[in-house]
């Protein structure tokens, strides 16, 4: 029961979105500085719970995904460490490493350039790879307690401020499936902005908590109650889950989020309009079906897209996400 747990935290660090968040008045905004100090308190609390608890922090920057800290020491960048008898040393190391690497990235940005979409998917996959490696290391050295094959309870916590990028639908779904396979719980904390459809599905499908922060001044309390308890404790003290999940998927052809789509009967690829040939598996559909489908299409075809739909420029890979 009292076994160590692993937590990978993914922090959305889009400068633009954080600027919006800090200026927001309704709901009251949250400056990045305050957010980071609360985040550090939360990370320290995770380490405080058990000496063997492990932690990795990933930063999703515009067009980049970076490992900011890991308790196994891969991402040690800060060496200038003052001796402070008032602070538990692992906390000190964690805090200074995370803060200095974030500051380093932020200073290198060119303000005039247009911001690229944040590297959320990169972070997710890096976190999953890291967890996969940790699990294999632990099970390879399976020693001590008898029959304990999985001695860590891995979790991923996504702290998001950016809106959905519809182009990332397929990679996010694939990450979700890998997470399910690895038995990783994905928790999502939406600190600012509208609900995030894909992340909602991620939390739902992996049995994690999804919390939309309503009062930013209580962020730390939200995190402590919803994201600190490891899966074993969640059986005793429940965490908020979603009442309704937005299961909409993005089409493979234009990356639009669709309410009604057309699914290839062979490979289950999703399209926003009937197509004669499936772009994924190259199955040809009979012309009659095509006509019938076109006839039955609803008249209002303007799709609701949070992101900017981009025209299809390349053929999709063989990725086969099954919607919902």
């Amino acid at each position, binding site marked *: 029961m009292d076994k160590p747990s692993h937590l990978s935290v993914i922090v959305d660090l889009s400068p633009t979105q954080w600027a919006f968040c800090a200026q927001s008045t309704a709901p009251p905004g949250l400056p990045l500085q305050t957010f980071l100090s609360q985040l550090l308190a939360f990370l320290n609390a995770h380490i405080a719970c058990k000496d063997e608890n492990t932690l990795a922090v990933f930063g999703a920057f515009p067009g980049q995904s970076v490992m900011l800290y890991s308790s196994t020491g891969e991402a040690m960048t800060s060496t200038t460490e003052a001796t402070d008898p008032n602070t538990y040393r692992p906390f000190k190391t964690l805090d200074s490493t995370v803060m200095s690497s974030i500051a380093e990235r932020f200073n290198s940005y060119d303000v005039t350039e247009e911001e690229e979409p944040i590297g959320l998917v990169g972070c997710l996959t890096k976190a999953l790879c890291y967890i996969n490696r940790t699990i294999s290391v632990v099970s390879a050295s399976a020693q001590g307690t008898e029959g304990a094959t999985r001695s860590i309870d891995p979790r991923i916590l996504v702290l998001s401020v950016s809106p959905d990028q519809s182009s990332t639908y397929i990679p996010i779904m694939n990450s979700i499936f890998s997470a399910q396979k690895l038995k990783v719980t994905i928790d999502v904390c939406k600190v600012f902005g509208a*609900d995030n459809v894909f992340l909602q599905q991620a939390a739902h499908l992996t049995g994690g908590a999804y919390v939309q922060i309503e009062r930013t001044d209580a962020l730390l309390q939200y995190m402590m109650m919803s994201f600190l308890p490891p899966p074993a404790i969640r059986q005793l003290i429940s965490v908020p889950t979603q*009442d309704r999940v937005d299961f909409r998927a993005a089409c493979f052809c234009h990356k639009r989020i669709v309410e009604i789509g057309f699914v290839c009967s062979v490979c289950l690829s999703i399209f926003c309009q009937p197509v004669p040939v499936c772009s994924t598996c190259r199955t040809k559909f009979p012309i009659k079906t095509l006509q019938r489908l076109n006839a039955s299409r609803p008249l209002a075809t303007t799709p609701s897209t949070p992101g900017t739909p981009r025209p299809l420029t390349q053929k999709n890979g063989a990725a086969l996400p099954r919607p919902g």
Partner: protein
Amino acid sequence: MVGPSIRIKPAGESSKASTVDGGETSHRLIGFLLSQPQSTMNRLYQKPSSCLSIFRLLQPLERQVVMNLLWLETPIPGATMAAWVTREGKRPYQEALSTLQSLHILPQQSTRPGPPQSVKHNLNPTFKASLRQAITGGGTSGSFGILAENDDKHPAPDIEALDAFALERWETILYYMVSSGTGQFPAKPSQGVLYLLQRSGLMATVHGATLQITSAGFQFLLHPPHEQLWELLLQYLQMAEERQMDLVEVLSFLLMLSTTELGKVGIHTIQFIAQVTQALPHAQSYSTENLSATQKAMLEDLRDYGLIRQRTATSRKFSPTRLATTLTSSSPPLPTSAGTGDGSHVQGFIVLETNYRLYAYTDNPLQIAVLNLFVTLKYRFPNLVVGQITRDSVKKALANGITADQIISYLITHAHPQMRKNKPLLPVTVQDQIRLWELERNRVKSQEGYLYTAFASHADYEWVLDYAKKLGVVLWENPSKRCFFGSVEGHMNIRGYIERRSAGNA
């Protein structure tokens, strides 16, 4: 599409309902702390490091309750907290609350009558302030130990040397215990350690002079190192008051040690130790300057147990060893058992076959001596000892007070990785036979007492028997023979009762 709304999962909806933390026993130190008065605990909670260490020793659910309350400024109604608890969590949750209250982390609820909804939860203000400070850093408590400045003339010992030191000290103690009374005279631990062993009942003087291991001592040898360490430290705490040492200072020093660091990086699994030791060959030393007089006096004792190392007795620096830094964690407190040094011993070294033959890949005298407690050793090779579990060897162990379960659990914890492929891990025949040998010893149970017989009438018999039953001293009864057997403790009462009655009748 409708946006999702947060809701709290209703009770009983949780996905898996199997593992509930009911049977888990709390840490030994928590048991000790439960018996301490509120004033002691409040003084202890003034140090952030003590709060952090105690927090780590709590059960997972208790930790979560503390964390939920830690960042709240105002008390929270009990009903609000309870709404988060699932149905199967109700009982563990109540237990967690009452443990926290006994530890004075939550204030005791006033006994005034009122609906349970009016109960409000808030952490003990001292504990809250200290734990907050521990997690957010800052303050001026200096409770996490002051690092000594680097000294080129006497650099801090490297981790390997520290591990070797801790191991040597610890094994000296255990080896002394196990070989007492066997005619060998291994290195003697210090006088302080001997006194501690005697006080804790692990060893006792026989025939005036020589110290001999007791049956509690034999059982102690088979415990995992972590438990052994705490067993001795708890005894040390109990002695502290007699020696007019301030219990709070002693405790907070031990807890401070548990938050100190061996190297600069937290070491989590054995895999990383190698990397870390290569990168950072030098361990941390701490300065003794800020310690109180009591704590300075403790340095000597802790040095004897192998928890810390000092270059000389008067050195102003000390380096905590792995024994100390893992006090509040469950990582192995001792690096590897001495000997081959390739780390394979951590994994276990015992192979047991269905024909009761036992192969132990070790040349560590302590491990061999411990095995010798319940195994007939036959051959000895440079890295291997071969023995046989026999009826005689097990009977000898049983006579020393070791139980069959302890033997079996020792074999399981030290089983060779090769054995771990087996399911079940130990051959069932051997396990069962060890248990049978234990049962064989207990074929006759004896209880001293009095046989009450020859009652004048059945009513008389019933009368006395009822009274004896109320006292709970009846060991055996037979109404048709009109007699019963009562224990010694009840005899005076029963006799008095009969006398009073016959006096009344007369």
